[in-house]
């Protein structure tokens, strides 16, 4: 039986992991390579790297880091941030990424999803969506959640999947950072709308939140989080053991 996936997400700027990371016994907490190895050894099922660099020099550092990560750990790697063209896909795939996540780049140019899917396959294209409730509907936000695009999130995700997106990361801005649990209502609406794997993001604060997520919404394939893993509030081995004990199928 296929397992539910637990995915830590790392923000990388100028080749270093940003957002405080606090691990016991890990000297260089901002080294993407060391963190990736740590998470892989802990049983993370996949890793997501977001490149939040603005400069060309930072971009080059990111691909160097990615190459090093992909030579060191052997679990699926997803890369996002600054993906605006098919050439950007090419750049990160050559460095060992398995999947590429598009967000603002696909909003600016929706044909990016189809072009990339035709060239690299649907399984390679992850559509990442930041969504928030506006007037009782789910609305897509761009630029890291700062800009209301006016797009209806469910429609946008449907059209993305039709164009070839093979997986959806749904990040609820309403629950992100609050640590009160995943946005079950928004996730249920997305799971209802599409047949591709859905990865829940935004709101995880405890192991119970993951239990609720997978029990309430069996169609959700994975849970993604950043700070609760980085700060050690939730350890991945504990999380996976407790989920397994609670009847959620896990890779242990």
């Amino acid at each position, binding site marked *: 039986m296929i397992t539910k*996936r637990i995915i830590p997400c790392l923000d990388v700027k100028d080749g270093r992991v940003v957002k405080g990371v606090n691990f016991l016994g890990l000297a260089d907490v901002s080294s993407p390579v060391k963190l990736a190895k740590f998470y892989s050894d802990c049983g993370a*099922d996949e890793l997501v790297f977001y490149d939040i660099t603005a400069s060309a020099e930072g971009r080059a550092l990111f691909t160097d880091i990615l190459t090093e990560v992909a030579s060191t750990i052997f679990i*699926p790697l997803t890369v996002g941030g600054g993906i605006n063209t098919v050439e950007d896909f090419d750049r990160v795939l050559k460095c060992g990424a*398995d999947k590429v996540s598009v967000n603002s780049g696909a909003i600016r140019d929706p044909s990016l999803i189809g072009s990339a899917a035709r060239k690299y396959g649907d399984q390679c294209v992850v559509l990442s969506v930041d969504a928030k409730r506006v007037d009782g509907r789910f609305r897509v936000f761009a630029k890291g959640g700062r800009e209301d695009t006016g797009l209806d999130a469910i429609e946008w995700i449907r059209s993305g999947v039709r164009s070839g997106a093979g997986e959806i990361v749904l990040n609820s801005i309403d629950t992100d950072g609050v640590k009160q649990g995943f946005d079950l209502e928004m996730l249920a609406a997305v799971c209802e709308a599409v047949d591709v794997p859905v990865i829940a993001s935004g709101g995880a604060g405890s192991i119970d939140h993951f239990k609720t997520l997978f029990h309430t919404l069996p169609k959700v394939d994975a849970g993604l989080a950043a700070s609760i893993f980085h700060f050690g509030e939730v350890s991945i081995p504990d999380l996976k053991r407790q989920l397994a004990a609670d009847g959620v199928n896990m890779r242990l």
Partner: protein
Amino acid sequence: MIAIIDYGVGNLFSLRSSLAAVGAQAVVTGDPAVICGADKLILPGVGAFADAAGLLRRSGLDRVVCDEARSGKPLLGICLGMQLLLEESLEYGRHPGLGLIPGTVAPIRDVIPASYKVPHIGWNALHFPKERPVHPLFSRIQEGDCVYFVHSYYGADCADSVIATAEYGPELTAAVARDNVMGVQFHPEKSGAVGLAILAAFCEGKGETLC
């Protein structure tokens, strides 16, 4: 030395890195002389069957790989590379494969419950058929260990050659073997320590213990 067959399909970065991680000497090559000189071969592959089969044929490497396999050289197909070992594929039409192992490549949609998603993507547990001994490729892992899958088609009508399955509704073919020719549907180069243990078994196993 292990030759990773390069016929213009996909990205071989992770495969090369994972072989280096298990200490294997490997070279990515499309040169028939290098392939013939290698001790073992790996046939990778991603994307659509017809495209990959076409590239393999046009490069002339299909015959090189078949000749080497028939001469007894260990050959491991990975993902689409496993599917290419079978006789034919039903992916968008009918397309001949290398025919090194009897079987057909068929859509998983036709055999899985409607509620299951396609592609079959993620970590799934390997099961070994009870009626035969565990294949040497899996000598360093356990029944139930998880590996990473990404596929929409599977090896059908190859029951005699199946050495591992994974449950996705029914038990789907996860690996096949016939004498010195082996194939895995999953990605050992993306399956963590379990995947590396499988690659190490292939790389280090002596000819006769692999078959």
